[in-house]
């Protein structure tokens, strides 16, 4: 049997026999689910933490908010995500049966710390005059924040947010440590069944790559749209 014939045989064993490709399909579904929900949680937490820091700068008596945000960000960014994940699953939420919601929570909380810093710098990059103009028109602090500051800040941080999205997608590949059947674990399962490493690992890596490329191009399209008001 030649090289190509061997490859074909391995392909059949790895993916066709006993519908083993389903390992990757289920894994992909879980990876996408975890990434999508963790992203939503991460953006929500990040926005709240960023607002904590912004408000603490304006109102000195709310300094405690800054301390809370700082502790959160320091602890989360200072420890490996895989350990955070295991602490959630095996310690804090040890009663949980399904690891997927735990993974969503763990990655969401982790991502929130990074997103917080992205939003904070984005909000602070908006000229002070924008808030003053909004307030001078009789708009409240929150209305001005919501309709004047945040849309501009969001546009500015979109590239950084996109990077965080991509990093999160790839980072979920450690979810296997808490028994999540994600895309990486799917490839690993096939390897255990067929003793072939090459095709399953390359296949799952390729799927990650394609997803990242799709996300990148969607983000560039979104950035171009949002930048319309900048053209002069």
């Amino acid at each position, binding site marked *: 049997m030649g090289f190509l014939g061997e490859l074909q045989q391995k392909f059949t064993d790895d993916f066709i026999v006993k519908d083993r490709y389903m390992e990757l399909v289920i894994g992909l579904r879980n990876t996408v689910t975890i990434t999508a929900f963790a992203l939503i949680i991460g953006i929500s937490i990040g926005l709240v933490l960023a607002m904590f820091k912004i408000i603490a700068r304006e109102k000195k008596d709310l300094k405690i908010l800054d301390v809370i945000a700082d502790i959160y960000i320091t602890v989360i960014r200072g420890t490996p995500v895989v350990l955070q994940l295991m602490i959630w699953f095996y310690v804090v939420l040890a009663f949980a049966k399904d690891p997927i919601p735990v993974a969503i929570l763990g990655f969401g909380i982790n991502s929130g710390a990074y997103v917080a810093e992205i939003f904070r710098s984005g909000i602070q990059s908006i*000229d002070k*005059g*924008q808030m*003053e*103009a*909004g*307030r*001078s*028109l*009789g*708009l*409240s602090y929150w*209305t001005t924040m919501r*309709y*004047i500051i945040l*849309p*501009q800040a969001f*546009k500015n941080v979109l590239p950084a947010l996109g990077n965080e999205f991509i990093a999160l997608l790839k980072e979920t590949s450690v979810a296997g440590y808490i028994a999540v059947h994600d895309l990486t674990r799917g490839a690993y399962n096939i390897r255990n069944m067929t003793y072939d490493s090459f095709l399953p690992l390359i296949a799952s890596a390729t799927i990650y790559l394609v997803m990242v490329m799709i996300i990148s191009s969607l983000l560039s399209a979104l950035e171009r749209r949002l930048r*319309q*008001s*900048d*053209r*002069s």
Partner: protein
Amino acid sequence: MIEVRNLVKDFGNNRVLDGIDQFIEKGEKIVVVGPSGSGKSTFLRCLNLLETPTSGEIYFQGEEITSPKVDINKVRRKMGMVFQHFNLFPHMNVLDNITFAPAHLKLMSKEEAEAKAEALLKRVGLIDKAKAYPNQLSGGQKQRIAIVRALAMSPDLMLFDEPTSALDPEMVGEVLEVMKELAEEGMTMIVVTHEMGFAKEVGTRVLFMDEGKILEDAPPEELFDNPKTDRAKEFLSKVLK
């Protein structure tokens, strides 16, 4: 219309306003002049509480707005402000810049706000820019839009914080022209500016400020032709060349 009593503002250990007393009546056009760092912008920004006074009181239409019980957002609806750097909202087109606040605050319907914005834009000659974004406009156009944005709230008082200082010289005229028209219509205005020609032509009273105090307070012809303090003489001799 607006009364200021013993207004003091500190930034850290730096006293920027040092006991300002003023009474401004409806229809007056007050021009505030003085060297940079004299506190004139801070004075203006205290009037709508963009800066919180360290002490002193401000009354607007009979109400003490420095009282913590006052809803400052409501008060500000009646005080338009125009900034040196325009501060238009770059992510909104011209029409949305003008209509956002009155429509969002439900002072008028979206349609009414747009009709009013269009009427104001026609007046300042920029109706063709209604759908443009701020970055597509010249400085003079931006400032005229900023004036229209403030006017769309139907304010009783207009504050101008060096409205022409960031403009190229050839664009100063178009902005001053709009301000003059506004003055002629009877708007109460407080203008911080270096445009002495405008002060002379439009001002009913000129305040000369230095080191956080109002040193002179007189009609423009009196103040410019016959300043009483040495500090004002020195300042005017430099700017009136």
